[in-house]
């Protein structure tokens, strides 16, 4: 057994549903099952081969989610645990599954997450009216914004005042990612290009964040299958190895402690790069969790791609499109591919696998895609993960 997970596990199957504004009549179990069926078939496996689950119930699921899914899908594993990582679930599930197969707890682990959000037809997320928890009691009476908009707006405001990261700088992320989405038929914004002016002139949601700097809630699902490296030989697809990974857990509430522009992905990145034996300069493609434009900037800085405060300028200096010098969020990112609530980050894991396989079709990166850096982010810089995936050339 290797000392770390480096190269021990492979993502061998991926399955996604196209994000949609609404999936009438579909609940989380239905959406996740369909994505899981796609992932198992993509791996060339049968339902009976799956002996492990790592699933995150997300915002809508209930306790006992893995057994619920077992019953719903007709798959009965011998090892199953949940994941409770919000937007960091994709990265977290991959690492959990890698640890399980490496420890002999299971051989083929199905990971997945879904969001239905609006089965009743109303799209607007429910207003948080609960005021009895430690965080909400001291927030809700002051009028929080929808979702995490307010927290990331305060991060963006502080980053802007400390480092000059204005909307004009941040906007390029949204524009480059939209270009990628315009070349991905699975992306919710496949058919609508945008410009810097469109972003800057879009309405302010929570100052300084503009509408086109924020993800749009939608329904979707994403699943993948992880197995041990020796079992992956001879399977259908070019293997995508898990080379390194780690998580960084921070505070649940953004406001009380710590510098809010610093994200915990930095701690995760240092461990992940050390495990993989690579550094930021070696990375060929990035799939960076993008709930907002500012999220990407902070993660790039904290992951070591540039110095703290230089993220805005780094973005200007590089072409983030899939044909550019620093391909980033090649599927369009959550900003333009779509964010199926907290399941949205899972698609950044599956997109990395697709790019390593060279199966990106119209949005395949033309340059090398052997080493890909993936992040996940839950809450308001509350829990984050860093994952390095690579082809056999990187072992």
């Amino acid at each position, binding site marked *: 057994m290797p000392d770390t997970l480096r190269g021990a596990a492979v993502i061998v199957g991926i399955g996604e549903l196209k994000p949609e504004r609404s999936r009438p009549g579909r609940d989380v179990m239905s959406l996740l099952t369909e994505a899981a069926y796609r992932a198992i078939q993509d791996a060339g496996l049968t339902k009976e081969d799956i002996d492990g689950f790592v699933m995150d119930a997300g915002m809508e699921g209930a306790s006992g989610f893995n057994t619920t899914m077992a019953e719903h899908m007709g798959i009965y594993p011998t090892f199953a645990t949940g994941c409770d990582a919000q937007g960091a679930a994709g990265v977290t599930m991959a690492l959990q599954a890698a640890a399980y197969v490496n420890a002999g707890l299971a051989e083929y682990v199905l990971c997945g997450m879904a969001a239905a959000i609006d089965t009743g037809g109303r799209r607007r997320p429910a207003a948080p009216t609960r005021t009895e928890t*430690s965080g909400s009691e001291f927030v809700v009476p002051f*009028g929080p914004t929808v979702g995490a908009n307010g927290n990331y707006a305060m991060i963006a405001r502080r980053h802007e005042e400390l480092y000059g990261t204005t909307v004009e700088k941040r906007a390029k992320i949204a524009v480059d990612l939209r270009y990628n989405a315009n070349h991905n038929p699975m992306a919710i914004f496949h058919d609508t290009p945008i410009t810097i002016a469109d972003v800057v002139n879009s309405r302010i949601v929570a100052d300084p964040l503009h509408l086109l700097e924020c993800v749009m809630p939608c329904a979707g699902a994403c699943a993948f299958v992880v197995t041990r490296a020796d079992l992956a030989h001879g399977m259908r697809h070019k293997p995508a190895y898990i080379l390194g990974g780690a998580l960084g857990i921070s505070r649940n509430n953004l406001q009380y402690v710590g510098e*809010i522009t610093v994200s915990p992905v930095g701690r995760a990145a240092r461990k992940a790069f050390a495990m993989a034996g690579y550094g930021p300069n070696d990375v060929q493609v990035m799939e960076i969790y993008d709930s907002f434009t500012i999220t990407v900037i902070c993660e790039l800085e904290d992951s070591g791609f540039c110095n703290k405060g230089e993220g805005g300028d780094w973005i200007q200096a590089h072409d983030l499109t899939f044909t550019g010098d620093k391909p980033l969020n090649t599927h369009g990112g959550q900003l333009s591919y779509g964010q199926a609530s907290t399941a949205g980050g899972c698609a950044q894991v599956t997109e990395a696998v697709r790019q390593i396989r060279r199966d990106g079709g119209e949005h395949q990166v033309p340059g090398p895609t052997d080493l890909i850096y993936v992040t996940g982010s839950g809450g308001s810089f509350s829990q984050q993960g860093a994952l390095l995936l690579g082809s056999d050339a990187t072992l």
Partner: protein
Amino acid sequence: MAATQQPATQVYTKPLPTPSSVSQPFWDAAKEHRLIFQRCRLCGTRVFYPRDICPGPQCFGVGSLDWVESTGKGRLYSYTVSYQPAHQAFAGDVPYVLAIIEMDEGWRMTSNLINFGSQDALRIGLRVEVVWDDVTPEFSLPKFQPFRQ
């Protein structure tokens, strides 16, 4: 002192705190227009939101937090001008300022910044002071305004 006091006849429709036994002293003090926070008698860590255990990095204190009165003065740590509140009851207030306030004693809280005039006056580091909003007979909310010496 309470610059945005509600007329007695007007029903307050916004969400109110639901105090726990741990947080009740904060709201009791708020009714008397005293802003209080917690400090650990073992390690000195300043704590907010209210807890019954100490989160200090070296500390295992249980029941070690004492309530301390704040000067009510601090600085604007960061803020957002909200145009899209989650709760419908705030719709009539937009745009309003949701802020993180860093108190002089070294603890932070979320609140609203009010009485600031123009948005152009807003900047991180702005000196602020607490101002009490007596929203109901039971609850006074600590809000903040620019501090004019």
